[in-house]
C-alpha cells in the first residue's frame, strides 16, 4: 500500500471513530450480520448440547432474500436431518417494524400452519438460539449506548424500548471495528446476571464478505449450548421472490437445497 493511501485510510477511520454513534454501530452490525449481499444460502449444522452433555444434531438449509437493506427480508428454512423431520420447512417474512409472518410445513401431516408467536424470542426449533437470533433483532428496538471502544471492538450496551416484550433487561455486544460483526453478546437478566451468551467462533471471508461460519449460544441459567456451523455459504444467487411463498413449502426447490 502506498504511504499516501495508508495515511488517508488512517485519517478516514479516525474521523469515523470520532463521529460514529452507538446507533450507527448497531445498524452496521445488523447489516454485517443479516443483510450481506442481496440474498444468500447457507447449509447449517446445528448441534444442540444440553446440560448433561447430550447432543442432538440437525441439518438444515437456509435461503434468504432481502427486500431492502435493513428492511424486510424473507427466509426459507428446510430440514434435512434427522430423518423423521426431513422436508419440514419454515417460511419467515421478517418485518423489522412489525410482527413477522411465519409459516410451518409439516410433511407427515401435509399441513401448512401459520405460527403466530406473539414474540420472536421463542426457541428456534429447540435450540438455544431464538428465532430473533437467526433472523436478526432490529437495531431500532433497543436504545444503544457505546460504553467502550477498544483496539478491536465497539462495546454496546443495549436496553429494550419495550421491556415487557423481552426476557432480558439489557445486553452487551462486542462488535468488531472493521467487519462490524458482533463476536460476543451477553444477555443480562433483571438481577444484572449474565444468563445467556452468544459467541462468533469462526469468521471467514466468503465472496469478499466477512461471514460468521461457526457460532455458539450458551444458556448459563439452565446449562447447555447450541453450536451452528455453516459448512457452505453463498451470496448473491439471484433467488426469486416467489420461492418464498407458501406454494414452495409443499414443493421444495430441491436444486437450491442441494438435494
Amino acid at each position, binding site marked *: 500500500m502506498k504511504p499516501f493511501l495508508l495515511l488517508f485510510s488512517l485519517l478516514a477511520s479516525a474521523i469515523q471513530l470520532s463521529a460514529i454513534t452507538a446507533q450507527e454501530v448497531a445498524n452496521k452490525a445488523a447489516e454485517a450480520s443479516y443483510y450481506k449481499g442481496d440474498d444468500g444460502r447457507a447449509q447449517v449444522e446445528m448441534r444442540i448440547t444440553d446440560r448433561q452433555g447430550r447432543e442432538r444434531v440437525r441439518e438444515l438449509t437456509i435461503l434468504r432474500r432481502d427486500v431492502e437493506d435493513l428492511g424486510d427480508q424473507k427466509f426459507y428454512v428446510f430440514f434435512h436431518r434427522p430423518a423423521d*423431520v426431513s422436508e419440514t420447512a419454515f417460511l419467515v417474512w421478517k418485518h423489522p417494524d412489525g410482527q413477522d409472518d411465519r409459516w410451518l410445513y409439516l410433511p407427515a401431516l401435509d399441513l401448512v400452519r*401459520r405460527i403466530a408467536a406473539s414474540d420472536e424470542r421463542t426457541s428456534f426449533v429447540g435450540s438455544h438460539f431464538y428465532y430473533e437470533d437467526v433472523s436478526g433483532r432490529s437495531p431500532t428496538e433497543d436504545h444503544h449506548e457505546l460504553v467502550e471502544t477498544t483496539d478491536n471492538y465497539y462495546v454496546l450496551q443495549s436496553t429494550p424500548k419495550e421491556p415487557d416484550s423481552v426476557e432480558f433487561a439489557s445486553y452487551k455486544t462486542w462488535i468488531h471495528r472493521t467487519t462490524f460483526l458482533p463476536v460476543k453478546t451477553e444477555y443480562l437478566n433483571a438481577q444484572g446476571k449474565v444468563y445467556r451468551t452468544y459467541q462468533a467462533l469462526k469468521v471467514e471471508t466468503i465472496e469478499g464478505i466477512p461471514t460468521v461460519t461457526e457460532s455458539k449460544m450458551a444458556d448459563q441459567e439452565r446449562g447447555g449450548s447450541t453450536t451452528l456451523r455453516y459448512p457452505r455459504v453463498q451470496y448473491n444467487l439471484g433467488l426469486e421472490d416467489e420461492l418464498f411463498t407458501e406454494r414452495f413449502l409443499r414443493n421444495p426447490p430441491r436444486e437450491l437445497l442441494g438435494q
Partner: protein
Amino acid sequence: MNSLVNLAIRRPRLVTGVSALLTLSMLLLATLPSVFPERFPALHGVQVDTDPENMLSHDNPARVLHREEKAEFELYEQIVLGVVNDENPQGVFNAQTLDNVYRLTEFAKTLDGVVAPEIIAPSTVDNIEQAGLGAVSFSWLMPKPPETDAEALAVRDAMLRLPMMRGAIVDDAGKSLMLFIPITSKDQSYRISRALMDEIETFERSGGEKYHITGLPVANDTFGVQMFLQMAISAPIAMGLIFLLMLYFFKRLTLIVSPMLVALMSVVITMGALIATGNTVHIMSSMIPIFIMPIAVLDAVHILSEFYDRYPKLQDKRATIRAVMSELWWPMFFTTVTTVAGFASLMMTPIPPVRVFGGFIALGVMVAWVLTVTFVPAYLTFLPEKSLQNFGHRHEGDDDEATGVLRLIASLAGHRPRAILVCSLVLLGVAGYGISRIQINDNPVKWFEPSHRIRVADAVLNERFSGTYPAYLLLDAGQENAFKDPALLEALNGLQAHLEQNANVGKTTSITGVVQTVYREMMEGDEAYFRIPGSSRAVAQTLLTYESSHRPGDLFHFVTPTYDKAVVWLQLNSGDNREMSSVVAAANAYLQAHPLPGQVQHDWFGLTYINVIWQEKMVAGMLGSLLSSFAVVLVLMMVLFRSPLWGLLAMVPLTLTIALIYGVIGLVGKDYDMPVAVLSSLSLGLAVDYAIHFLARSRELQRQRGSWAATLPAMFTEPGRAIARNIIVIGIGFTPLILAPLVPYQTVGVLISAILLVAGLVTLLILPSILTLFEKRFFPENRA
C-alpha cells in the same frame, strides 16, 4: 455385689470426679466444634439430617435410581405453593391476586436455591393455542399481570384449555392456582418457604386471598427445625416431671438428684459420642435422649426405692447401700444386658439411621448402668447421716399410696390366679386379632398435627388439585425413537387412563399430553384431534413444533432426547405409603395384563415412592430385630435363672405387653409407622426389666421364707412398691410428650407410658398368678 460398688463406696470422690470429667469432656467434644467450627476443624460438630431419603443407605438401588433419573430428566424436588380464594366469585382470577402471584413468582426467581428457569407459574409457562384459521400460537400465558378482572378470567380460560395445566396448576373449578417452585436441594426448603411467606406478608391482598405452602421437602425440612425445639422443650419437661414425681415418692431432694444426674450424664455422654463420631442428628437419633432417660432412671429408682425402704431398719448409709446393691446387682445387670440386647438388635436392620439409633441407645444404656452402680452409691455416701434422719419407710405395711392397690393385686393373684390367666388368654386373642388388622403406613406430612399450617395446606390443596405428592413411573424401551411410535404412545395413554381411575391418582402427565395438545392446536383446536397422530414422522414433526415454544426443554422432563426412555408423572393426592403402594400394585398388574409394545422395562422413583421403600425395609427390619432380640433375651433369662422354665416365665410379660400394645394399635386403626415400629425394642427391654426384678426377688424371698404363700404378700411390699413407683414415675413422666406439636413424639409419649403401665400390670398380675397356680413346678423344693 462387686468391686465396682465397693470402689464407689470407698472412693466416692474419685468416682464422682471421673463421672463429671467424662461428661464434661463429651459435652465439650460435641459443643466446641458446633459453636466454633473453624477453630476445631478436625472435630465433628452437630450435623442435622431431616431427609427421610437417608433412611436408605446412599447406595440403595431405589435411591441410586431416584438420583440418576432425577438428573437424567432434570427433575427437582419442589415447593408447592397454593393460592386460593373462597370469597371472590372469580377465585384467585382477579387482577389484584394475579398481580401478587406475578410478583411472588418474580421474587422466587431471585432466591438462592430456587431453580428459576424451571418454576411453574402462570407467568413462566407457555400458552399453546390456535390463533385464527390455520394458525398456531405459542405465547407466554401471563407475560405481565392482567390489568382488569376480565383479563384475569382470560388467563384462567386459557389454562383450563390446556390439559397439562388443568388440575395441576389450575383447579378444575378455575378458582385456585398452584405454583411449583423447584429447588436445588431439599435442605433449603424451610428457608425458601419462610422467605416466600415473608414476601407474601408484604402483599396487599384482595379479600379472602390465602396462600398455602406444602410439599414433602418443606415438610421434611420444617420437621428438622421443629425437632430441635422439641428436643429443647419436651425432653426437659419430661425430665422435670420425673423429678417432681420422685420428689413426691422419696421426699429428699438431695437423694433424687442422683437418678436425675445419671440420666443427664448418660444422655450427654451418648449424644456427645454420637456427634463426636460424625453421626448426624436424624429424626431417629433425635429421639435417643427420650429413650435413654426412662431406662437410666429406672435402675436408680429401684436403688432409691430399696434404700428408702431399708434405711430406717439399718440406720447406716454404707451398710444400706451394700445391702441394696447386693440384692439388686444381678437383676440390674441382667435388665441392662437385656435392654442392650433389644436395642443392639436394631443394628442388624438394613436402615442406617435405625442402626445408629439402636447402637447409641445400647451404648447409653450401658453408660447409665455403669453410672448407676458407681455414681449413685458414691453420691449416697456423700449424704450426711444426719440428713437421712426420719428418712424412708419406717414401718413395713405402712400406708404408701401404691400399697392399697398392690394389696388388691396380691390378693387377686393369690386367690384368683385362674381367672387372671383366662383373662390374659382372652386379651391375647383379642390382641392377635388387632395385630392382624394393623395397617402399615406412614406419611412424613402427617408427622405434623392436623392444625399445623403444612397439614392445613396439604388438606386444602389436595382437595382442590390433582395432588401435591409426585411419583414417577420410568419406562425404558431400550431403543431410540421408541417414544415417537404411535402404538407405544397409545398404549401409554391406556396405562395413564387406568392409573387415573385410582382414587389417589389425581393426574398423570407424559409426552402424550404434549403431543396431543400440540396436535389439537395444529388442527384448529378441534377436540377430535386430541389424539396421537398416525405415524412416527407425524409425532416427530408435532414435537418439533412444540420445540418452537419458550420452554422447549420441558420436553426432556418427559422423554430423553433420544426418545428411548420416558417418564410418566403421577400427582398423588395423598402421601400415605399405603396409597403409593396400591398405585404401584395397580400399575404392575395393568402392565402385566396389557404389556406395552416392545420390550419396555418399568420402574419407579420420586420421594413418595422412596418413602414406601424405606418403610418396607423398616417393617421387615424391625420384625427381624424383634424376633432376634426375643431369642437373645430368652437365652439370657435361661442363663440368669439357670432354668429354661423360669427363662420362659420371664418372657411371658413382655410377650403379652408387646401383643397388647400392637393389638390395640391395630384395633384403634393407628398406622404402624416409624415411631411405632421402633418402640417394639423399647417395650421388649422395659417389660423384661420388671419381670427380672419380680422373679429374682421372688426366688430370693421364697428361699428366705420357705413357701410361696408366705412370699407372695411380701413381694407386694418393697419389691412391688419399687416396680409400682417405676411405672408411675416414668409412665407419667413421659406424658408431656403428648403436648408436643410433632406427631411422632406424641406417639412415643403415649406408647412409652402405655408400655410401662401394661408391662408393669402384666408383670404384677400374671407372674404371681402363674407362680401360685404352678407353684410345685417352679419351686420343686416346696413339694415336700
